[in-house]
């Protein structure tokens, strides 16, 4: 039962008086709704990281895992497009050095090694409005959302037609449809993912905020790469 998984994770976070779920928890919650993530392994040390990279296949990304660090990029805790074992070793050492320098008190549990996908970066987010309640945001993700704010909003719960319309409302729709050499994404799949998020939040009003960013459109599939869920 998907709902039980979600409720259990929320209960555990509350019991530990945490509002922000760990990436692992957020993954489990979203995966229970059918949202796919890129291949991923949590590694406690460099040896495990090398093993994981070999298993997942290059290129991979490496990110620091720490309960104290939310903005991993800002502390130098993210390394992308690692092509070889040598890259993995270097990345691991640099991440450890960077984090110890910037946040010497942070407890480092290890690193995550992830399948590196190159595609169109999308974002699905959720915030709460004082009058309308939970509201869903869709747009181009990654740096696009930070710089251009090319996003559209709908009040949760959405109907499928709302999801379809909000996808077409953003200026970047041409990119999603495959303009200028971009690989076209499957819009019906994007609708499916938007609806999964809408249904999850509608069933769990205790979710205060969420975002899946980036959500990678890659070879007619969608993969969540990073996700954040914050409870009330």
């Amino acid at each position, binding site marked *: 039962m998907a709902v039980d998984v979600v409720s259990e994770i929320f209960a555990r976070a509350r019991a530990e008086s945490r509002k922000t779920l760990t990436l692992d928890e957020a993954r489990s919650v979203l995966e229970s709704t059918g949202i796919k993530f890129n291949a991923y392994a949590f590694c406690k040390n460099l040896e495990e990281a090398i093993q994981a990279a070999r298993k997942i296949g290059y290129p991979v990304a490496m990110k620091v895992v720490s309960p104290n660090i939310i903005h991993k990029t800002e502390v130098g805790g993210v390394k992308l497009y690692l092509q070889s074992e040598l890259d993995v070793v270097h990345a691991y050492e640099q991440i450890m050095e960077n984090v110890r320098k910037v946040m010497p008190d942070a407890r480092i549990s290890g690193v995550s090694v992830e399948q590196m996908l190159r595609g169109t970066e999308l974002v699905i987010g959720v915030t709460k409005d004082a009058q*309308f309640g939970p509201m869903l945001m869709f747009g181009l993700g990654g740096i696009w959302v930070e710089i251009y704010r090319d996003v559209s*909003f709908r009040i949760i719960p959405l109907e499928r*037609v*709302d999801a*379809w319309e909000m996808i077409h409302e953003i200026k970047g729709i041409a990119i999603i449809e495959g303009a200028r050499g971009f690989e076209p994404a499957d819009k019906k799949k994007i609708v499916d993912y938007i609806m999964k998020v809408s249904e999850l939040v509608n069933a769990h009003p205790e979710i205060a905020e969420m975002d899946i960013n980036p959500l990678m459109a890659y070879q007619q599939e969608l993969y969540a790469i990073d996700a954040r869920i914050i409870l009330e």
Partner: protein
Amino acid sequence: MDENIRYMFHPRSIAIIGASNKLWKVGHAVIANVLYGDCLRRDRTLGYKGKIYPVNPNEDNVFNLKCYPDVLSIPDEVDLAVVAVPAKFVPGVIEQCGQKGVKTTIIISAGFGETGDEGKRVEAEMVATARKYGMRILGPNCLGIYSLYEDLNTTFARAMPMKGPISFISQSGAFCASVIQYSLEEHFGFSNFVSIGNKSDIDDADIIEYFATDEHTKCIGMYIEALKDARKFLKVARELCKKVPMVALKSGRTEIGRSAAKSHTGSIAGNDIAYEAMFRQTGIYRARTMSELFDAARALAYQPPPPPEGGIAILTNSGGPGVVATDAASDLGLPLAKLSDATIAELNRVCPPEWSHRNPVDILGDASPDRYSDAIHVLLEAGEVSGLIVITAPQAMTDPETLAKRIVEAAKGTTKPVIASFVGMISSPAENYVEEQGIPEMSFPEDAVLGMHALVHRSRILRREQIWQ
């Protein structure tokens, strides 16, 4: 829908609490409006025809009607009570109305929720009293309502709008009076008109639920500062919008606008991003200004949505307004029709050789009513034309009244929308004539384009499920 709300618009009997013979009292204006439709008239042909019971312990008769000391003394059922007494007496009056079995009470009196927490508390108590008796409350702090097809005016405003297809809700009272004045100038009419006040009980969603069942209502217009139950409104409006076109002006779009709204009605205007999302989800056409609100409402009330194929044609006797209209259409993303060779050949037959040979279709300064009529026929029959804007700049050779008649004749029988613009003319017989015949007329071409945009939006809303499938 709550039947009590239907009784508010169709009461069999009305008690006016605070009815007075003293000129300048609100209760005087209210009973005069109920009796005569317009409080400055003194014959009842335009007034409410049901039973009227004035209530005031200090009067024996009001306008020659027996006056009762309180609502409980009225020897008859009372469907609707209108309360115009000082705030401190209102809670007692509400208790009596409840006991009497009144179905809905309109509280015109101000001095409640809009004044602060104490006022909010009194308001909540009155609503609790009303609930106990199964009664509904409109207001407090409102102007009242018009139910035009009942010849019912319960307001204290000095104006009576024409009967027509628009039903309107306003969160601002004085706005109502201005809107009525404007409607009289522009010659369009209303089915119902509601000043909704503090929304202590009856809210926007309740009112639009009734409007959607009203046979005369062809379009619902709204002025909103803040919704009371935003989620309920979204749900209700989304369903109703499939049936009746709706247009809304939501103020407080900007940070400064929001703080102005807060000091006006004490309401929190909210996050505009969320309101924008709501408008898109419900299918309500969002107006950004007062003139857009009524340009869109008139277009939606009087004209059909265009077919999905093709674009808009602009017919004009003057280049300038044609270009202005074209720019306005382009700004709104409204596609213009590309005239086919067949249509151009047809127009060649009915126009002098100097006509523009493209859209906008400029049929020249000396265009006669006959030339307009011929061109309208050609354009409305063209497959590439989904809707038509007819612009006339008054020139020496133009006879606006004959032209108005020919426009109406030529547009008869078409299923495509037609909007007219007699540029720069206001309240002329020609404009009034086309408006009465169901063709909205706007004084400036860009307003006509906005009206057409609202119709294209409506057409898309009605087909949104097919578009997505």
